[in-house]
Structure formats: structure tokens, C-alpha cells
């Protein structure tokens, strides 16, 4: 079942095109990793898919009525957030803002959803802790819980493991894998090509030469070009 189709998409800022002629479609339940050099337009693509900026040309089609406010989004952390005086609970609950609409306060159902989201990412014990006193991995899991409050079927993540230590990184990947197994479609920007090949079903390589396809096709195409992936498929499975 198709979920998302991008047709002849051109992306960029004010006439400066970053990515052009992008065509791909994604089935519900897929796990797409977007890889590529810095400045290749990965984040621009994600912002465009989210509707935060409009494409220069082309179109993005959501099938079967997925609406913007039903997408979970984990942006990169900003400097503002690192020393923000707010409790974990306040932050997770703010994930329900899309559901609440113009209603000024959150209702019982939304609070229940926030509690359930905290359970899923294992931050319930941190509920009353201040965000700025948490470790990087804990902060990321709090933001994941917030995004879960908004997500119904699609999850977009912008470099979710950047700056995390190996343990926190592994936990984060496991959480995302779990979400995918529960039926969530995942779109993730990553610099970690090894993890992309290990967890994803599809790869989008942004750059001057765009690749889109399954992980196996990606490895094959890279081998054909003489750029071998760091690990072969079998080795990747063994390690995971």
C-alpha cells in the first residue's frame, strides 16, 4: 500500500536548487534511510515532506488521507533546548498540540497518550526531572516520546543519534526498530551508513546522483560502481 509519493521534486531555497528531479514512492510500513554528504539536501527534503517549506517544483502526495499533523517528527536539537527549564512531562505533553488544535488546555485523553508515549520510550521514571539535567540519550528519548504523541502512522527523524555514545545509540536504534515493527513508517536521516544498511528496508542517497531503492539494490549498485559498502549484507546481519 502506497503511503507517500514524490514526483519530479525540486528542492532548495530561493532559486538555489539543492536536489532536483526526485522521484520515489514509499509503502506503508517501510523503513527509509536518507543518506548523503553534508549539504546534499537531506534536511531540506525532510522539511519539504513535513510542509515546513514548499518545493521549487514537483509535488508530494500523501495517500490514504495522512494529514500533516499526524506525522511524528524528531528534529535535530537546537541550542535553545539544551538549557531549557522544563520538565520531561511538560515537553512530552506538548507533542499533543496538533491534536488539541485551538483548545487551550490538554484533555484527559491527550494526557493518557503522553503517559503511554513515555512508557514506550522508557522515560516514565524521568517524568518530573528537568530536561536540561538529562543526558543526551535521555533527552533524545524524551523528544521521541513527544513525537510519538503526534505520530499516528509516519515518523520522520533527523539524525536521531548524532552526539550520542555507543550505548545510547544502540538503544535509540532499537527503539526506532520497535516502532517500525509496530507498523510505523520510518523516514530517517543518518550519517551512519552501517546502521542504515542494518535496519532500513530502503535507502535514498541524496547528492548529485540520486539513488532510491531497497537496501540490497543499494549494495549492488555501490559494488557495481566500485564503491564497496563498509560491510557486506551477510556481515551486517551477523553483527546485528
Amino acid at each position, binding site marked *: 500500500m502506497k503511503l507517500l509519493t514524490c514526483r519530479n521534486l525540486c528542492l532548495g531555497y530561493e532559486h538555489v536548487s539543492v536536489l532536483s528531479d526526485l522521484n520515489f514512492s514509499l509503502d506503508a510500513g517501510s523503513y527509509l534511510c536518507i543518506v548523503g554528504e553534508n549539504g546534499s539536501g537531506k534536511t531540506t527534503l525532510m522539511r519539504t515532506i513535513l510542509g515546513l517549506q514548499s518545493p521549487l517544483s514537483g509535488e508530494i502526495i500523501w495517500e490514504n488521507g495522512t494529514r500533516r499533523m499526524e506525522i511524528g517528527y524528531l528534529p535535530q536539537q537546537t541550542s535553545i533546548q539544551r538549557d531549557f527549564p522544563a520538565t520531561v512531562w511538560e515537553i512530552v505533553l506538548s507533542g499533543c*498540540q496538533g491534536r488539541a488544535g485551538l483548545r487551550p488546555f490538554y484533555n484527559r485523553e491527550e494526557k493518557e497518550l503522553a503517559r503511554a508515549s513515555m512508557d514506550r520510550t522508557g522515560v516514565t521514571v524521568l517524568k518530573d526531572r528537568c530536561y536540561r539535567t538529562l543526558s543526551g540519550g535521555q533527552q533524545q528519548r524524551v523528544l521521541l516520546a513527544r513525537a510519538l504523541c503526534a505520530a499516528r502512522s509516519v515518523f520522520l527523524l533527523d539524525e536521531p543519534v548524532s552526539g550520542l555514545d555507543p550505548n545510547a545509540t544502540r538503544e535509540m536504534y532499537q527503539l526506532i526498530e520497535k516502532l517500525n515493527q509496530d507498523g510505523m513508517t520510518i523516514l530517517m536521516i543518518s550519517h551512519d551508513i552501517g546502521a542504515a544498511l542494518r535496519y532500513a528496508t530502503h535507502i535514498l542517497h541524496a547528492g548529485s546522483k540520486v539513488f532510491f531503492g531497497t537496501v540490497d539494490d543499494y549494495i549492488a549498485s555501490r559494488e557495481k560502481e566500485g564503491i564497496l559498502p563498509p560491510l557486506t549484507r551477510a556481515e551486517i546481519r551477523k553483527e546485528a
Partner: protein
Amino acid sequence: MEMLTAYLAFPFVRYALIVGVLIALCSSLLGVTLVLKRFSFIGDGLSHVAFGAMAIAGVLNLTDDMLFVLPFTVLSAILLLRTGRHTRIKGDAAIAMISVGALAIGYLLLSLFSASTNLSGDVCTTLFGSTSILTLTIGEVRLCIILSAAVILLFFLFYNKIFAVTFDEEFASAVGTRAEAYNLLIAVIIAVIIVLAMNLVGSLLISALIIFPAMSAMRVFQSFRSVTICSAVLSVSCSLIGILASILASTPVGSTIVVADIAAFLIFSLIARFKGGVRS
């Protein structure tokens, strides 16, 4: 104490206290958001714009300054926030330019066209609000009460949205919150507060009213809600103490309030250090 009760019998002292408390409350509510969004200096910039607007109003011989100063400042606030992103002139530079520009033009206009014999006295009053709080008319007090009530109501209704937009604008827009609209709302509210606060502390010291209570509260408290509440309580107490102290000791009102705010900040910093663990 007797002296104080004697003073409280005068209506102008009561007006000053009412206006002082309301303005302190409003400015501290928005202060937390402004400090966290790295917009601390927008208060400074806008207050200078308001000074420039007042000078223009004076030159034009308008009967009611407010009717000109308020829309002018609101408009500047909107423009300043607009220039914040996606433009060649970055936010902080834009604020600095507008702030200094408005101050210079305001003073130039006053010295060119003012009929007053005591120009430096007038300018000093506008900048430091030395006595204007004690010469409020009942009309000004009413206006202040209405606008403050509107600010407090808006803040209360949009508290969760303001928190969401302050913490993470990207996420807020992604899930369908109109972050731009809320930024605009914040800008308009802050402009209203600044115009009101000019009567209290004058345009140079308004930033103190916005920043100090928020900074003090953020040193000690850990949740957005407790920071907001503490900041409001602190700001109101400092203003009350400042106004009363200035009446008793015949010091300038604005400066006395700001000194009270500074003292509170130092005390809170000490508490934070004593408790340990809280980063600034």
C-alpha cells in the same frame, strides 16, 4: 509605616501601585519566553522605538501620545520579528540598528522642534521614567488595566502554545501549530507591554523588567510553569518594594525598581549555588 499610610491616602500613589503591579506582572510573563527564545534585546530595541515614536508625537503636537506610540511600536515589533530569519540582516543586528536609530532620531527631533525650555529634563523623564508614574491620570490607569487584562488573558489561553513554540518552533510547525502566528502574537503583546512600561521605568530600563525576573526564576526552578509563576511573583514583589521605597526615600521610581530586581537576581543566584547542580 505611618508615613506609608499617609502616602497611600493620595490617589496618585494608589494609581502608581496599581499600574506598577500590572506592568510588572505582564512583562515577567512574557519575559521567560523572550529570554528563552534569545529575544532578550527585542525589549530594548522596541523601547527605543517607543521613545522615537514619542518624540514624533511630541513634534506633531498630538493630544494623545498613546494613539500614535502604540501602533507604531506594534508595527516595529512585527517588522523586527519578520527580519529575524531568512534575510541578509540578522536579527540581533537589525535590533541594534533600529534601537540606536530610533534613539538618535528621537533626540534629534526633540532638540530641533521642541518648544520646551527644559529639553534634557524631558528626555531624561522619557528615558528613565523619573516621575511620570506619579502623574498618571485616571484615563491612563484605565487603559493600563484594560491592556494588562488582555495580555494576561491571552497568555493564559495560549500558555501551552507559547510553551510549545518557545521550546521547539520546528516541531510545532511540523505538527500543524501556526508558529508564525504565535510569534506575531508574542511580538504584539511585548510591544503593548513596553509602551505601558514606559510610564513606569522609562524606556531605558524596560529590558530590566523583562529580563531580570525571568533570569532569577530560571536559576532556581526546573519546570516552565514554576519558572513562569516565580518570575511573576518576583517581578510584582520587586515593583511594589521599588515603588514604596522610592516614595519613602524620594529616589527615582524606575531605577529603584530595577535595583530591587538586581538584588533579587543576586539572592536567587546565591540560592542556586547553594542548592548546586543547576546550570545557569
